[in-house]
C-alpha cells in the first residue's frame, strides 16, 4: 500500500513537472518583481541564475572542500573534481545535520552573489531606458555565460563540474528525488509568500508607482535610484537561489546549459502567459508551461509517430505561438494585475466604517 503511494508520488513525469515548476517559479517570480513591479525590462535574467549556479557549484563547493581539508584551488574544478565531490558526498550522507547546514550556506552564498550582481546591474539600469537597458542586460547575461564557458578555473569551463549532493540527507534513490523536489517546492512557496508580502508592502506600491509614472513617484519623495537598485538586488538574489537549487538538484554545473533562451526568455513567456505584475498569475503560468513541457518531453518518442518533425522543434513552435497569441489577444495575461490591498477587503471596510463613524460622532458633538 505504502509502496504504491510512493510509486505514484515518484512517477518521473510528476516529479519532472514539480521540479520544473518549483525552479522556474522562483526564477519567474524574481523576474516579475523586476519587470512586473519595477518596470525594468530584465532581458538578462540568466545572469543572476547563472551566478547562483556558479556560487553553489564553484564557490560553496570550494568552501566545503577547504573545510574538510581537501584541495580547493584550481584542482577543485579540474581533474580531481569528481573524487573530491564524491568524498564530500560520503561525508554528507553520514551527517544529515551538516548536509542541511551546507545547503543553507550554499543558498546564502548564492543569494549574496546574486544580490551583488543585481547591485552591479543597477548602475546601467539607472542611466539607460527601455530597449537600451533590455539589450544591455541581455549582453551582461551572455557575457557571464561566455566567461563561465571558457574560463576553466572558475567552474570547469565547457566540461563543467560536479556539484556536491546536499540532498543526500533525505534518503537515496526515489525517495531522494521526491524529498529534494518537495524541499525545493517548499522554498519556492516561501519565495512566493515573500514576494507577495513585498507586493502588499509600501515598497511594492512604491515600485509600481515608479513603473507607472517615474516623475510622479519622484514628486512624492520616492528615491528612484534606490528603489530600482533594491528591486534588482532582491530579484537577483532570488534568481540566484533558483540557479543554486537547480545546480544542486541536478548535481552538475555546465555554463553551456545556462543560455538566455531557457533562463531569460522562457521565464518571460511564463510571466506573460500568467499575468505580468500578478504573483498568482506567475504561479499559474509556470504551472501550465511546466506541465506542457514535461508532457512533450515525456512523450517525445510517442509523438514522433504522429508528427513528421522532431518534437523538440514542436516545443519551440508552441511556446513561440503562445507568446505571439498572448501579445495579440491578452497582453495582461490570464490573471491580470490588480491592486494589492495591504489588508483584507473586509478589514479595510471595518476600519473605514470605524473612522467614518468616529468622524460622524465628532461632527454631531
Amino acid at each position: 500500500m505504502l509502496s504504491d503511494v510512493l510509486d505514484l508520488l515518484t512517477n518521473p513525469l510528476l516529479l519532472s513537472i514539480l521540479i520544473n515548476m518549483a525552479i522556474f517559479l522562483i526564477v519567474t517570480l524574481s523576474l516579475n518583481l523586476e519587470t512586473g513591479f519595477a518596470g525594468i525590462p530584465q532581458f538578462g535574467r540568466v545572469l543572476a541564475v547563472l551566478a547562483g549556479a556558479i556560487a553553489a557549484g564553484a564557490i560553496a563547493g570550494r568552501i566545503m572542500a577547504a573545510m574538510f581539508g581537501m584541495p580547493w584551488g584550481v584542482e577543485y574544478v579540474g581533474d580531481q573534481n569528481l573524487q573530491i565531490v564524491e568524498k564530500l558526498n560520503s561525508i554528507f550522507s553520514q551527517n544529515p545535520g551538516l548536509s542541511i547546514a551546507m545547503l543553507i550556506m550554499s543558498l546564502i552564498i548564492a543569494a549574496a552573489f546574486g544580490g551583488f550582481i543585481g547591485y552591479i546591474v543597477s548602475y546601467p539600469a539607472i542611466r539607460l531606458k527601455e530597449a537600451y537597458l533590455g539589450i544591455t542586460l541581455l549582453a551582461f547575461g551572455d557575457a557571464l555565460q561566455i566567461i563561465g564557458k571558457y574560463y576553466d578555473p572558475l567552474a570547469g569551463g565547457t566540461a563543467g563540474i560536479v556539484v556536491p549532493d546536499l540532498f543526500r540527507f533525505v534518503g537515496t534513490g526515489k525517495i531522494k528525488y521526491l524529498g529534494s523536489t518537495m524541499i525545493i517546492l517548499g522554498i519556492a512557496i516561501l519565495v512566493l509568500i515573500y514576494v507577495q508580502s513585498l507586493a502588499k508592502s509600501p515598497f511594492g506600491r512604491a515600485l509600481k508607482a515608479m513603473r507607472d509614472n517615474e516623475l510622479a513617484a519622484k514628486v512624492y519623495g520616492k528615491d528612484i535610484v534606490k528603489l530600482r537598485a533594491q528591486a534588482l538586488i532582491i530579484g537577483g538574489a532570488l534568481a540566484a537561489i533558483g540557479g543554486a537549487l537547480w545546480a544542486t538538484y541536478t548535481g552538475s554545473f555546465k555554463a553551456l546549459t545556462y543560455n538566455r533562451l531557457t533562463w531569460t526568455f522562457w521565464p518571460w513567456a511564463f510571466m506573460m502567459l500568467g499575468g505580468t505584475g500578478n504573483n498568482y498569475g506567475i504561479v499559474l503560468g509556470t504551472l501550465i508551461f511546466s506541465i506542457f513541457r514535461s508532457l512533450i518531453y515525456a512523450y517525445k518518442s510517442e509523438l514522433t509517430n504522429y508528427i513528421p518533425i522532431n518534437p523538440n522543434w514542436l516545443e519551440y513552435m508552441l511556446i513561440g505561438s503562445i507568446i505571439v497569441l498572448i501579445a495579440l489577444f491578452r497582453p495582461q495575461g490570464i490573471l491580470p494585475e490588480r491592486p494589492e490591498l495591504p489588508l483584507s477587503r473586509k478589514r479595510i471596510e471595518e476600519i473605514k466604517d470605524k473612522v467614518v463613524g468616529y468622524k460622524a460622532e465628532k461632527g454631531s458633538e
Partner: protein
Amino acid sequence: MLMVSSSFIQVIMTAIGYSGGIALAAAGITLIYMTTGTFNFAHASMTAWGFYIIFSLYKVFFGGNPYYYFPVAFLFSGILGVITYVVVNKWLLKKGADMVTLMMSTLGIDLIFFAFINVFADYLTSEYKVNSRLIVLTTHDMVLGEVAGFKLKAITIVSVLIVVAIALFFYFTLTRTKFGIAFRVTVENPDLASILGINTEVIYLVSWFVGGALAGLGGAVLSLVISGNPYTGNVVIVPEFAASIVGGLYSIYGSFLGGYLIGLSEYILINLIASIFGRQLVVYEPLIPLLAMAATLLVYPQGLAGINWEKVFSKLKRR
C-alpha cells in the same frame, strides 16, 4: 608587438567580410526600430535563414556559385519580415502596444522561425544526406588573387560593394523620392503623416520587408565568412544588436558604421590581445561586441547618433 604579417592581413580581410554582414543586418534592425518602434528579436532567425538559403541552394540543390543565390536570401527573409508585420506587428501597433510587448512578440516569432530552420535542417539531412548542422562554405568562396602570401577572397570585396550599394540606395530613396520623404515624415511623426494622407501602414510594411531582407542578405554574406548551424542566428544577433545600438538606433548610416566598428574590433582586438597575452584568449571573442556596446551606452546612453555632433564641432571650432 604588432605584427603586420600576411596572417594579420588575412584576419583583416575576413573581418571586413564579417563586418559587412553584421552591418547589413544591423541596418535592418535599425530600419524596423525607426519606423515601428519594434526591437526585432526575430532578426536572429531571419539572418540564419539567409545563411541556410545560400547553403541549401548552392550546396544541396543547384550548385553553381554561392553569389547567385544572394537575391533569393534577400527576398526570402524579406518575406519573413512581411509575414511578421502582417500577422503580428501590424495589429500590435494598431493597439498601441508598449515597447516590451512589441519586443516579446518578435521573440515568439523568432522561436517559430527558429523551429522551422531546424525542421528544414533535419529534412536536408534525412533527404539529401548532408551535414546540415555544421555548415562550412568559407572554402567555397572565389579567390580573386593571391598577393604576398594572403588570399583575397571575393566576399571581402563583394560585402563592401553591397554595403555601399545599399547605403547609396537608402540615400537616394530617402532624399530624392516621394516615398523617401513620406518615410521620413512617418519616422518623425506618424500621426501627422497620416493626416497628410500618407499611408503609414505601407511605410511599415516596406520597412519590415527591407529590414528582414537586409537580415537575410547579412546572413548570406556571413555564410561565406563563418561556419554555421541553426543556432548561428542566436550568436550573431548579439553583434547585430550591438552594431545597431552603437549606431544609435535612429540612423541607418550609423548602424553601418556600428557594424564595421563592432565587427572589425571583434576580429582585430582579439587578435591583438591574443598576440600579446597568448592564443588561449581567442575564445573570448564574443565578449568584445558586448563590452563595446556596454561601454558606448554607459558613456552615451543614446548611442553614437545621440551625440549632438554640431555641438561637439562648434566647441572644437571655438578652441
